[in-house]
């Protein structure tokens, strides 16, 4: 088991109180597994991703914990967390287009980055060139400035940089949102290829686009309003979703394999509840076609309804 997240609660401190963006999430991620993390915008996907590598100044750990390769991570201790970053946990950010320092040649930036992490550039240079070639980049990108690269080239460069030290866990947060459909697929495939070659042990692939997730993920986890609602193998999520929210997500796809661009749920009216004071009971109940009395009174626990298939719904 690469990653074990247990009842993780991460809140944002704001002037109006704490935003319960991640409110008790439990899941596991196996070796060589790609977990697709899906859900509407604002459900807490990025919060989970950031909590695993670097919390921002307003995030507070309010419970639970994270284990990586059997070792407990000090995720709320920025300094202690540093030794895990890049070496063990890495990130491909959503903003790959602007992730590189515009005034440094790419090769020099990589050298300065790895050396600042205690790795000799000479030791990784050969591998770096090999991987650049693998994603279709010429070695001379290293002597260029980011502005000289196209968007797709920058994306691939960042992919190579992020995975250069063979991390156990790679977080890819909406890496494809800025790309066109055909490039999205190519990037997703390349990431799966990185896993196959062992550049990364396991991966959390975050996207609000379930059809894209389906193409590379082994398992898919769906979140709603800071909670896990369903987690199962990719095929089970797409072919026999159990949670009404997942069902709505799947139904809103014209057909699997076609991207939906609408971030809002077309099938279900309404919006997710405020995470400042989330309501008791099931957080989805205002929009749920199957809601009944118990849903308002009691929160549905996450239960394993079939092997590896977890659902949080009284009717799941």
């Amino acid at each position, binding site marked *: 088991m690469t990653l074990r997240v247990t009842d993780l609660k991460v809140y944002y401190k704001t002037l109006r109180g704490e935003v319960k963006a991640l409110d008790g999430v439990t899941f596991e991620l196996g070796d060589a597994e790609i977990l697709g993390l899906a859900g509407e915008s604002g459900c807490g996907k990025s919060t989970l991703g950031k909590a695993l590598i670097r919390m921002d100044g307003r995030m507070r750990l309010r419970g639970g914990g994270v284990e990586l390769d059997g070792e407990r991570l000090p995720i709320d201790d920025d300094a202690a967390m540093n030794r895990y*970053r890049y*070496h063990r946990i890495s990130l491909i950010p959503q903003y790959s287009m602007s992730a590189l320092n515009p*005034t440094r040649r790419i090769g020099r930036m990589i050298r300065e980055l790895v050396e600042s992490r205690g790795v000799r550039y000479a030791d990784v240079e050969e591998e770096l060139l090999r991987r650049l070639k693998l994603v279709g980049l010429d070695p001379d990108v290293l002597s260029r400035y980011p502005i000289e690269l196209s968007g797709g080239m920058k994306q691939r460069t960042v992919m190579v940089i992020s995975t250069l030290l063979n991390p156990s866990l790679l977080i890819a947060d909406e890496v494809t949102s800025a790309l066109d459909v055909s490039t999205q697929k190519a990037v997703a495939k390349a990431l799966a290829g990185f896993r196959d070659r062992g550049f990364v042990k396991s991966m959390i692939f975050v996207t609000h686009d379930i059809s894209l997730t389906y193409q590379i993920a082994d398992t898919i986890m769906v979140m709603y309003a800071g909670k896990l609602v369903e987690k199962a193998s990719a095929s089970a999520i797409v072919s026999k979703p159990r949670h009404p929210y997942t069902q709505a997500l799947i139904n809103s796809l014209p057909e699997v394999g076609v991207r939906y661009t609408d971030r809002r749920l077309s099938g279900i009216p309404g919006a997710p509840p405020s995470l400042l004071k989330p309501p008791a009971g099931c957080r989805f109940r205002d929009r749920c076609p199957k809601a009944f009395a118990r849903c308002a009174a009691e929160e549905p626990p996450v239960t394993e309804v079939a092997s590896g298939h977890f659902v949080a719904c009284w009717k799941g």
Partner: protein
Amino acid sequence: MRRYLLRKLLVYGLTFFVAVTVNWMIPRFMPGDPVSSMIARASVAQPEAVEAMRAHYNSLFGFDRPVFEQYVNFWIALLRGDLGISIWLFPTPVWDVIVRAVPYTIALLLPAILLSWIAGNWFGAFAARRRWLDNTMLPVGYILTATPYMWLAILMAWGLGVVAGIFPVAGGYSFELQPSWSWEFIGDLALHWFLPFASLFIVAFGGWAIGMRNMIIYELEADYANYLAALGAPARLIRRYAFRNAMLPQITGLALQLGTLVAGALVTEVVFSYPGLGHLILKAIQNQDFFLLQGTFLFIVIGVLIANFLIDIVYTVVDPRTRMGLGGAA
């Protein structure tokens, strides 16, 4: 990169041409007549003598020629370094009057600009990292930049000169001294130089410090900084990148501020009766010495253009994006 510089050079050439033309037009099409004012000063009573003098001066200054010829002659003379003859210090050539004043202005401007820029950038970057310093620096800096050069100059002349009596408040050196390379004279020069320099330095320093502080904070929140932090890069490396990138708008700022700084220096010279170009402008206006005014303006324009061009070159060296021939992000 070569095309970029060539294009810049063309723009500078054009600016220079327009500046010279406007400069030529000002005395000729403005009310007031330098020749009459000179004759008036000579206080000659006889009308014939007045006419003779007028004819003499008109031909001396070339006012009896057709306008177009005057314009062409002006260029020819200019390229020869001939800016005419000063009326105020008749018959000293304007060129000589200016050359005597330029060292004073340069001695004020160059250190004021460079030192305030370097110290301001350094201090701004430093303050951005310390909350308490940042909290005190911000209001002080904003007050400083908002202060007109003249105010601070007057305030300092009054406080440190008149009241405290530490510094002299007028002139480039004491009247009783003769210019020489003695320590006494150099010390006297420095003493006279200090207040005008300090008032320029302080106002400009505030502006650079604020600018740098804001830019650094902006850069530290840029995507590349976040990415590096997520990969565990030490703050030292991130700050180094941020500092370098924050420097770029400050270099542009230097080019943009140059005009303001020069204007500030001229005003400061007037306040302190410091014998540089600003002082010349005042004298030229008081004496309706259009040639001197023209020559001084021309000198200033050329100086600012050259400085701007140098800054442009520096900028292309430090920012790869300009070298790619692109302005912003691709």
